[in-house]
């Protein structure tokens, strides 16, 4: 009886602890989601007002280009055309209406591909950017973390120092210079891989091996360029985390207990370094999108970076702000997803304080 009783209490305690833990995680997610929504709103608002604060009337700039292309127009004709465009692009509305429309994600018509709406245009270009970007960053993270662990484990060796030096140099090299080197050597000199476009020009998107292999081959170089730079960053970060953890006192104790160095590395070093390393992933997401835009332009990859540069050439106000808006949305959402994964990894968040 006594045994049963204490057992029941134990079960009950575990159950309470579980539900408390669950409530804590739910609270964390709810709070994080609130911060996400607020940040999204605030960032979009800031972006909106930055756009509106730009000196000069976008319509005038656009019209100046148009009239150069079209030849002479009388003053009245010009004024009429400007009015039509202004109405079309919603720029005659008061600032508050523009703001509401802006937030309503109805981004108005795009000038680069006129009848198409900006939203459709961005949606069409988005998969290329997101596909390449997320695959590259995730791959870089996995590979970089793995190499970082190995380098921390094998420290004090000559080969390790060479690897660290290589990673340091790669990490500080601008990604576009790496891309440039790859284009020059791998692309033009040895002609191993294609350097421009998303797939061979004569192909149509289809579920055929020919198309898919062409797609993959074209994605290789932009991906490798980013992988080298971002992966080197993750490698060094993980190595530093592991080294500082491996110097902690509790690891001397683990070693004194006679645990194998693999167990120490796996259960004591890796698990503890993993949490800040995942948090690092969230930060990198935001900062590497910039480099991604340049990579897209260099490789003529049809993502939103390329779209942005095209829009810039035509002073396409709607598309430019649409791209900025979308990048903010993408970065914040990806960061949010990474943050949601953190409590799954952190044992401290699961236990009751």
């Amino acid at each position: 009886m006594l045994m049963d009783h204490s057992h029941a209490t134990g079960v009950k305690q575990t159950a309470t602890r579980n539900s408390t833990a669950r409530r804590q995680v739910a609270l964390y997610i709810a709070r994080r989601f609130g911060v996400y929504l607020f940040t999204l709103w605030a960032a979009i608002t800031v972006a909106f007002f930055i756009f509106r604060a730009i000196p000069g009337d976008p319509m005038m700039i656009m019209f100046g280009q148009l009239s150069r292309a079209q030849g002479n127009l009388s003053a009245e004709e010009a004024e009429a055309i400007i009015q039509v465009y202004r109405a079309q692009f919603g720029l005659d509305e008061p600032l508050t209406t523009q703001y509401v429309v802006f937030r309503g994600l109805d981004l108005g018509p795009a000038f680069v591909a006129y009848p198409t709406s900006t939203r459709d245009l961005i949606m069409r270009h988005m998969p290329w950017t997101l596909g390449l970007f997320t695959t590259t960053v995730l791959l870089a993270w996995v590979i970089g973390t793995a190499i970082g662990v190995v380098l921390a484990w094998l420290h004090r060796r000559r080969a390790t120092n060479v690897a660290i030096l290589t990673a340091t140099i790669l990490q500080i090299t601008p990604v576009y210079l790496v891309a440039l080197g790859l284009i020059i050597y791998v692309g033009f000199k040895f002609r191993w891989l294609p350097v421009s476009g998303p797939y061979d020009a004569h192909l149509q998107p289809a579920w055929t091996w020919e198309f898919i292999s062409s797609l993959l081959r074209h994605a290789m170089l932009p991906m490798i360029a980013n992988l080298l730079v971002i992966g080197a960053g993750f490698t060094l970060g993980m190595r530093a985390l592991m080294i500082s953890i491996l110097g902690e006192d509790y690891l001397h104790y683990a070693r004194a207990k006679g645990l194998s160095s693999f167990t120490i590395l796996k259960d004591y070093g890796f698990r503890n370094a993993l949490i800040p390393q995942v948090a690092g992933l969230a930060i990198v997401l935001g900062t590497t999108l910039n480099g991604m835009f340049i990579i897209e332009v260099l490789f003529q990859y049809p993502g939103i970076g390329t779209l942005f540069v095209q829009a810039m050439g035509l002073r396409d106000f709607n598309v430019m702000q649409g791209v900025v808006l979308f990048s903010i949305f993408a970065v914040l959402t990806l960061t949010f997803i990474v943050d949601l994964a953190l409590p799954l990894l952190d044992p401290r968040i699961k236990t009751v304080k």
Partner: protein
Amino acid sequence: MKNPKLISGIILLVLLVGVAVFGPVLAQRALFADENPLGRGEFRPFQLPSPEHPLGTDGDGRDGLMVFLSSMLPSFVIGFIAGLVATSLGVLIGFTAGYSTGRLDTLFRIGIDMVLVIPTLPLLLILAVYIDRWNLGRLALILGIFSWPFSARVIRAQVQSLRERRYIDLARLSGANTAEIIFLEILPALLPYIAFFLSAGMVGAMLAEAGLLFIGLGGSGLPTLGFMIAKGLREGVIGVGLLGQMFLPAATLILTFLALNLIGLGLDEIFNPRLRTTVEER
């Protein structure tokens, strides 16, 4: 202070700045006694490297070596001003945030995190479109204004931890006012961080500047290393066999980043005791 990373970083940086400052003058004396090697159309364009033109000539008929040497200083100046602006803003905002409490502190934290995730390149590009005339100072200022959040974030955290320390309490009890505490007690403790962010900010600004030129802001016309690389790319100098005109500016940028990075790492090792113990252990 015997940190090999810090020392080699400083030596490398001093060498690079030395070349940037004295290189153009010396090269002018040695190679072009009574010519203007930077005048457009001074020489036949796209000449291959020769004793007179060690890097050949560029598409505008200027001497490649002289263009390269005289591009270094503007790049460094942009990096330095932008790094200074970013770090000052970061310190200012970091201190304000670190000294505020409660709801205001939450607001600051969210604000800093928010600016941190806004992708800066598109915004810079838009500004580049709408600002007609660029000059060095303006470009540096804009680059700096966009890159303070990272330093602000770290400095906020540091200030918050420092102001709870015993020695700050002691200073307060002995009658120091807030300004004295900030400038005499907290700021000196943060100097290594500030130096670290200054070097990181310089790298960031030079990186962004060259990146901007790469994808469109070619018209800024500022003679920087990034401009030289972008121009070489547009003119296809590699195809004509003038590899050096792209390789040298690219290598210089990478070396500069390496030097600044080594300085940052060295400072980190000296002033971050956790890192130091493990480093000595090895």
